[in-house]
């Protein structure tokens, strides 16, 4: 009987610590540094904004690729 409780407890704690670990990763990346941005994030969730975000990432990767090609050439 008590082994079930032990299992439940350990299972719960493992899950809890896994979530805590993910939180710490996010915090170290700086995702929680700007409290207001996090809370006001609703304003930035429209389809246009999400498409923009993808385009920006692509733009950045292209620019990095081009600059690498340039430096290889020179």
């Amino acid at each position, binding site marked *: 009987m008590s082994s079930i*409780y032990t299992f439940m407890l350990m299972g719960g704690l493992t899950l809890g610590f896994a979530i805590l670990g993910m939180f*710490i990763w996010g*915090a170290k990346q700086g995702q*929680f*540094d700007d*409290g*207001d941005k996090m809370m006001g994030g609703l304003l930035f969730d429209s389809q246009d904004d999400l498409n923009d975000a993808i385009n920006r990432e692509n733009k*950045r990767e292209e620019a990095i690729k081009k600059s690498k090609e340039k430096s290889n050439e020179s």
Partner: protein
Amino acid sequence: MEVKCTHCHLEFDEKVMIKEESDPSLNFCCNGCQGVYHLLKDDGLDSFYDKLGNNTIAPPLKQDTDLHKFDLETFEKRYVKITDDGFKKIDLIIEGIHCAACVWLNEKILYQTDGILEVNINFTNYKAKVVWDGDKIPLSKIISKIQSIGYNAYPYDQTVSEKKATKEKQDYFIKMMVAVFASINIMMLAVAKYTGLFTGMSADILDTVHMGEFILATPVLFYSGSIFFKGAYYGLKNKIINMDFLVISGASLIYIYSLFILFGANGHSYFDSATMIITFVLVGKYLEVIGKKSAVDTLDKIKSQLPTEATIVIDGIKKVISLEEINIDDIIEIKNGEKASVDGIVISGTSSFDESSISGEAHLVTKTNGDKIISGTINLDAVIRYKVTQDYEHSTLNNIVTIIEDSLSSKSDIENQANEMSKYFSISILSIAIISFFGWYIYDGCFENALVIAISVIIIACPCALALATPIASLIGVSWLAKKGLLFKEAKYIETFAKATTLVLDKTGTITKGKLKVKENCTKLEQNDANILYSLVDSSTHPVSVSVKHYLENKYKELVHLELDDVNQIPAIGMSATYKGMIVFGGKNKENNNYENTVYNFTINDKTIVTFELVDEIKENAKDIITYLHNENIKVIMCTGDNEKVAEKVAASVGITEFKANMNPIDKSNFIAKLQQNDEIVIMAGDGVNDAPALAKADIAMAMGNGADISIAVSDVVVLNNSLEAVKNSFYISKRTYRFIRQNLGISLVYNLITIPLAIMGYVIPLIAALSMSLSSLLVVGNSFRIKKD
């Protein structure tokens, strides 16, 4: 009828609004708003107005047209960094942001610009990080883009201390969240454990629960609690028992005892108490850290630019160089509105200078060929060229900065009440615990029982309330002060403020407004003469002309702007023009030297129509505020660099009995040191560069928000609205907050006086210990909320 501007949403009378024929539903308060609205519409960004909602924003700011400095090599070397990918990166502060929609707009419009790769604007402190391809777009174009939508941006140097503060905040945040997470879960397990105390629980289930508590408590003590271990260690190194020592010794002893229980000894574990102590106190510390950071961010926002470059003239060609590159005998040119960066002697040109920041004198000083220029003073009138006599390192401005740095390192910290108490508290509790242990051991011979009681005494003594007493009250005090326009850089200054005995006030800019105002004059001008004078002063930006213009606008109705011919600005003298064949002049002439104040003569065809005298006006309610301070037993002394006559007049008019005149920056600093030697706790309030050394020396430094950057940087408190009323508020709020801090400490003491006897008598079970911890903390926090009065 009032209508809203379509862009900024501010309301104005419909009659003054700009309307468009193509769309009558649009209303604009100014050309700026109209321009930005169409720009956004053309770029497809008008969803900005949906995001803005009903919020208002400020109309577009006046643009700084001199953007080429952003592309200069010296500028790049100082502010622009290169990323690993070879792109350029800069930190900017964006001015004019009011809400999330503004941040969205700035990010969007910059991302749409070709060449900009990354834009990250922080909502809270308006700091932006921009990464761009230097080959595709210059920085000046980026700034120009931000200005085109009505905002402004200026670079800021992310100092090492700021990076440290950001990292510290992040570190505290993570540790606090780990502690909070563990506390929440431990409390759930504790419910099971306490219920089991009353209804019965089998030993193996109790062991499982203990194991769970142990797994949760361990990271809290060693990871989150590392902050307290470090604080206690540094305290002990300096032979001080501080709050951190109290907290960590209590938590550690409880943890070690609970470990014994976990590994088989009889009794109750107290892992939940150990966790809660750490969590409560850590939350208090975190609130202090974010308070500190937000103070620093606010200061960055109000900081204006210190001169970092100068224009030198070599063989007739002008070149912009950084301050460090200036050599003696270089020729420097300064335009009107610019600050002199180094000391020198004028070689060509005549102009008026504002030396109030350095000398304290409010009246303008004329400089011409052969006169000395002091670094840090502002050129008002015309372009001047001067020969450098001291390089930047040895100039007056930098000398003052060096003196300040020396003063700051020797500044003493007035210990706060809680730390003083914690010394006695720790020793008392440990003594009581040891005495209880021996008492019970001798009484019934049972080692375990005696140990449990000794541990209970330590647990119930709960340092939470003691540790929270000061931070919570200080924070509420600080936020109340912030609403009144006072920026306390650290919450601990509240206590020092409350204990202060003496206030030293600067004159110019602190007691007086620092701006010249026309003294009330009996001469009534004829309407035509008033119109001519108004038209003459309207064409100048010189402070004296602006003061005369404001005076006329207040005194005369229906002033008409007339067309004057041959308008000519004579530097350091005044303005002349012609109107319908008459020669019109406004300014000073030789006879004016007999007056002690600045004088403005208005003549038509050499006949004096009126003479205005300009004085530095005293701030509103100054006299009442000085009276209030005297009633609170605060000694008020005025120290100024201005002459004895002016000082005496100002002191008498506000009710200050003790004053010192003709003081240079070092004199002021030495005067404060002398007061401190007589055990006075000194608060210094000032604004100019000449106040900075004294500010650095004082126990609390208060700078006026529109004062010199050095004064603001060196101060502990910044008065954002520049009013003397704020000085009165700071005393009132600080004293009230300090009273509540002492009440909180009293509450925690009384609490302990009730609960420690219970522990000594053996009545404390873990449930009581946990509840008492929460209750005492709640009492202290609840009491602190009573501080603020509307």
